[in-house]
């Protein structure tokens, strides 16, 4: 999976550089998030601007990251959702769980 990870101080920015986040690659995202948590990070921003398609496995990986961040008194916030990706969060009611920002810079500034 093409994932760009950058420590921005208050939070880590993860940019998913893939067209799809699905059952094929969501495990890698989950593993990368776990690695960051193990390194002591607890605040993440996941930028999904390049992601055109997300399935239930992709959503599950983000829920896993959210739970792990919360259990470490941190948070996982989302940014850059395309319209159809956003509608997936609405369909599954996960838009009530995640803080969702248009711009990743705004998400980073919110920590």
């Amino acid at each position, binding site marked *: 999976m093409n994932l760009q990870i950058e420590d921005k101080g208050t939070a880590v920015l993860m940019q998913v550089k893939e067209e*799809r986040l*699905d*059952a*094929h690659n969501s495990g890698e995202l989950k593993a990368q998030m776990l690695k960051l948590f193990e390194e002591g990070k607890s605040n993440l921003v996941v930028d999904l601007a390049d992601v055109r*398609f997300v*399935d*239930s*496995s992709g*959503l*599950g*990986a983000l*829920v*896993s990251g959210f*739970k792990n961040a919360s259990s470490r008194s941190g948070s996982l916030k989302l940014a850059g959702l395309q319209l*159809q990706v956003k509608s*997936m969060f609405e*369909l*599954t*009611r*996960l838009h*009530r*769980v995640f803080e969702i920002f248009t711009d990743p810079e705004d998400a980073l500034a919110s920590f």
Partner: protein
Amino acid sequence: MPTDRVAVDIKVPNQTRYLCLIGHIGENIARALKHYDGDKEKLAYDLNLVLTEAMANAIRHANEADPTKQVHIEISIVDRQLIMRVYDHGQGFDIRQFADPRPPMDEHGRGIFIIHSVMDEVTYTPTRDGHVLEMKKNL
């Protein structure tokens, strides 16, 4: 009533790397429809989604992630009804358990709910050597 006629029959290895291929076939069928009055881009996303979910379910839960097995998929449109069938070789599972929205913090089990939300009729029935998930949508 004018209708598009489509018949696709494909078998792919029981591997998640092929989800993208199957999803794109659904997407391209939606975009190529001549006789559809709704939002074709939304339909394209939805068909990509339900085929991805159905195939991922077949791979993980029914075919026990055995990469030597195959997933068989049929897609047809007749009389403005789209029918998609995903065949697996497994013991099957009770889809009624997954028809409702999952609690927000659940990491798994949303696939069948998503398929139910998008399609008009969904059944999961035994075949000679496994099960078939049949999903119908009126176009």
